[in-house]
C-alpha cells in the first residue's frame, strides 16, 4: 500500500463520530457570516442593514485576486454589517442576518436527483466556481478557481481528490464520501474537464473501508477516475505528502503543486463543485463533525456557514462538564477556540472537545538530541535546529537557509518530542516573520 516517503507519525485515529450520518442542522435565529472565510483579502460586504436576503445570494465580493465571493446561508434581514471576533478573538467584518424562514434563491436546484451530464464549457465552469465562492475545504481555504486555472505553460497531469482525512477525530469527509459518493465523482470529472482531461485519483486512507467501497462503486461509470487506498499515516492529507504518496514526485521547495504537475482538491471541495455546476448552488453549508471523548452524542452536521459554534455544540447536547478545550479542526492542526460565539466557516471541518487530561502540557525540558523530530518531519526539515535558531533571535537568514518556510505546521515534531519542547509554537511565529522578510524583498 502506498504512502509518502519521509517522516510522519501515527496518532490514535479516534474516529468516534464515523457512524453518525450527516444530519442537516436547522439554521439558528441569527447568523454572522464572516467575510474572511478564504485565504487572502477579506471579501467586501455588498449588503447593508435592513436588506432582505435569500439563501445563496451574494453578500460579499472578492477584494483581490486571491479572495472569494461570500453568500448568505439563510433567508432573512441583514441586522448589521460590523466587525466581530473570530475564533481567535481577532476582529473580522461579518454580516449578521436575522433568520426568517428558509427561502433559497429560486435558481438553486433543491431536488435530490443526481445531474450527471456536464454541459458547461471550461470557461463557464471556472467562472461558476469563482462565483459560487468555492475554496479548499480541507482547512487551508485557498480559492479553488485559482488552483484550477494553472498559469500559462503549466499542465496538470494528475488531479488528486483528497479524501485522506488523516487528522484524528474528524469524520466529515468520511461521511460525505459514504453518503454522496457520486456527487464527489461528478465534481472530480468537472474539475478534470477544467484541467484539460487529466488522470484523476480519489485518495482515501485504509481506515475508511466503507468510504473506499462507496467511492469505488460510484467511480464505475467514469473512466479516468480511480480510487487509491493509502496507508494510514499523518499528515497524508497534506498536499505535498499526498502528491509524494501517489505520484512519487516532490514539489520543489517554495513552489506550488502545479510544478509537480498536480492539482489537489479536497473531497468536500469536489462535492461543492458538483453542487455549484450541476445544481447551481453556491457554497453556503458544509459538513462539520462535533466530537470528543467527553461528548456522549458525537455528530456529523450539515451546518449553514455563519452558525455560532455554541449553537452547533448545543445541538450535540451542550457543553459537557469535563470539557476543557474547544478546538476548531482536528487535534493535530486545529486551532483552540477562544470565542465560542464565533461562527462556522468554509474551512470548519470539526468542532472537537478535549478534557483537561487530554490537553495537559508536560513541562518543557532540555533537548536531548534524539533526532525524533527530524525523523518525524514530513518535509525533511530539522525542527530542533529551527527551534534553536528561532529562540536565539535575529537569525532570520539562518532560518531561511534551513527552509523554515517549507514547514507545513503539521505538528509531527511537537507530537513526537520526548522533551515536550513546543517546537511548532516557536517555529510558526518565526516562519511568519521569515515569510514577511521574503515578501518585502520581493517588493523591492
Amino acid at each position, binding site marked *: 500500500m502506498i504512502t509518502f516517503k519521509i517522516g510522519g507519525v501515527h496518532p490514535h485515529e479516534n474516529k468516534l463520530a464515523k457512524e453518525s450520518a450527516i444530519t442537516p442542522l436547522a439554521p439558528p435565529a441569527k447568523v454572522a457570516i464572516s467575510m474572511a472565510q478564504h485565504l487572502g483579502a477579506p471579501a467586501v460586504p455588498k449588503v447593508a442593514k435592513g436588506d432582505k436576503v435569500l439563501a445563496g445570494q451574494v453578500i460579499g465580493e472578492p477584494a483581490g485576486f486571491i479572495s472569494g465571493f461570500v453568500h448568505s446561508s439563510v433567508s432573512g434581514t441583514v441586522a448589521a454589517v460590523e466587525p466581530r471576533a473570530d475564533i*481567535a478573538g481577532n476582529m473580522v467584518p461579518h454580516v449578521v442576518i436575522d433568520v426568517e424562514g428558509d427561502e433559497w434563491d429560486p435558481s438553486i436546484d433543491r431536488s435530490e436527483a443526481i445531474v450527471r451530464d456536464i454541459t458547461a464549457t471550461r470557461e463557464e465552469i471556472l467562472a461558476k466556481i469563482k462565483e459560487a465562492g468555492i475554496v479548499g475545504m480541507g482547512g487551508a481555504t485557498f480559492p479553488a478557481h485559482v488552483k484550477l486555472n494553472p498559469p500559462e505553460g503549466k499542465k496538470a497531469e494528475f488531479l488528486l481528490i483528497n479524501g485522506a482525512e488523516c487528522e484524528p477525530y474528524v469524520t466529515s469527509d468520511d461521511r460525505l464520501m459514504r453518503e454522496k459518493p457520486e456527487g464527489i465523482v461528478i465534481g472530480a470529472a468537472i474539475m478534470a474537464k477544467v484541467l484539460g482531461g487529466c488522470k484523476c485519483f480519489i485518495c482515501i486512507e485504509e481506515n475508511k473501508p466503507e468510504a473506499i467501497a462507496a467511492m469505488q462503486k460510484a467511480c464505475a461509470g467514469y473512466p479516468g477516475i480511480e480510487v487509491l487506498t493509502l496507508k494510514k499515516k499523518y499528515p497524508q492529507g497534506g498536499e505535498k505528502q499526498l502528491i509524494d504518496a501517489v505520484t512519487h514526485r516532490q514539489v520543489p521547495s517554495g513552489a506550488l503543486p502545479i510544478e509537480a504537475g498536480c492539482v489537489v482538491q479536497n473531497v468536500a471541495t469536489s462535492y461543492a463543485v458538483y453542487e455549484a455546476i450541476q445544481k447551481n448552488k453556491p457554497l453556503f453549508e458544509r459538513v462539520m463533525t462535533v466530537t470528543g471523548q467527553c461528548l456522549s452524542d458525537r455528530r456529523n452536521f450539515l451546518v449553514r456557514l455563519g452558525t455560532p459554534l455554541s449553537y452547533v455544540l448545543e445541538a450535540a447536547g451542550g457543553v459537557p462538564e469535563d470539557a476543557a478545550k474547544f478546538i476548531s479542526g482536528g487535534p493535530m492542526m486545529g486551532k483552540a477556540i*477562544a470565542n465560542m460565539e464565533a461562527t462556522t466557516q468554509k474551512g470548519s471541518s470539526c468542532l472537537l472537545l478535549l478534557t483537561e487530561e487530554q*490537553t495537559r502540557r508536560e513541562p518543557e525540558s532540555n533537548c536531548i538530541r534524539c533526532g525524533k523530530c527530524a525523523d518525524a518531519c514530513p518535509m525533511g526539515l530539522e525542527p530542533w535546529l529551527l527551534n534553536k535558531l528561532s529562540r536565539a533571535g535575529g537569525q532570520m537568514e539562518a532560518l531561511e537557509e534551513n527552509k523554515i518556510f517549507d514547514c507545513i505546521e503539521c505538528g509531527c515534531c511537537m507530537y513526537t518530542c520526548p522533551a515536550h519542547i513546543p517546537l511548532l509554537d516557536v517555529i510558526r511565529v518565526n516562519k511568519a516573520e521569515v515569510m514577511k522578510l521574503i515578501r518585502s524583498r520581493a517588493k523591492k
Partner: protein
Amino acid sequence: MDSTILVTVAILTIVGIVVAVVLYFVAQKFKVEEDERIDLVEACLPGANCGGCGSAGCRDFAQRLVAAPEIGSLFCPVGGNDVMQKVAKVLGQEAVAQKKMVAVVRCNGTCENRPKTNDYDGYASCKVKAALYSGDTGCRFGCLGCGDCVAACKFGAISMNPDTGLPEVDDEKCTGCGACAAACPRTLIELRTSGPKNRRVVVLCRNMEKGAVARKACKAACIGCAKCQKVCPFEAITVENNLAYIDFNVCKLCTKCVSECPTGAIHKINFPEKPAAPAAAPAAAPQAEVKAKEVTV
C-alpha cells in the same frame, strides 16, 4: 639518533624563519588602518552592547561616532549625557544634552481590572501568544503577561508583578535603551522622558476599541471620552481611535486630567501620596519616592 633531533630542529627553525618573513610582508601588504580614536571612544562607552543606540554593539557605535561629522544626532541611552560628554571630549566636539528616557508600560489591565476569558497553556512567550490569538482576556490591545520585555532587558530593570500580572519598570535601573519596547508585540511600552523629579502623567491604556467595548473588557480602559482633552490647559492631550495620548514634551504635570478621567486610565507616577503638597513636602519626599513605582490616585 642525535643527528635526527638536530636535523629536525634545524628544519623547523628554517621553516619558522621563512614563514615569519612571509607573514611579515603579508601583514604589511594587507594592513588595516584603523582610527585609534575608535578604541578611545569605545573605552568611554558602557560596554553593555544593548543596541539601544541603534548600532550592533558598543564597538560598532564607537565606529559610527568617529566616522560621524557631527555627533549631535547620536546618543548612548545607557551612558546618558555623562558618557556623551566624555566621547565629545575625545572627538573634540560639542555634546548635545538629551533628556533621560524611561520605559513606561501603558497597560493597567491587572487581574482585577481585566478578568480572564480563557486560559492560555501554550509556550510562554508574548510573541508566540500574540501570533496565535487575541489573548486570554477580553482586551485585544493589553499586556499578554508572558514577560518578553523582562527577558529582553539587559539591566534587570523590568520584572513581572505576580499580583497584577503586569511588568513593572524600575526607573533607577532603566537606561531607556528601548529593548523592551521592541520586544513587546503589542507596542505597549513607550520611551518617555523621565520628567522633572522623575514625575510623569501617562495614559496607561492602548485599547482602541469603542468606549463600551473597551470598558467591558477592562475596568481601567481608556474609553476615548476626551474629557481629559477638554480639561487640559496646555493642549498636551490628543484623542485618536478612541484612545487618549499625552505628549510628554508638552505636558506640564498639572494632573487635572488625572482627576477628570472617569475610568482612572490616566496615572500620575512618582507624585507624592498626598496631592497638592506645597513647596516643603517635595524637598524631603523625592529620595523616598524614587523607589515607589506607580503611585496611583
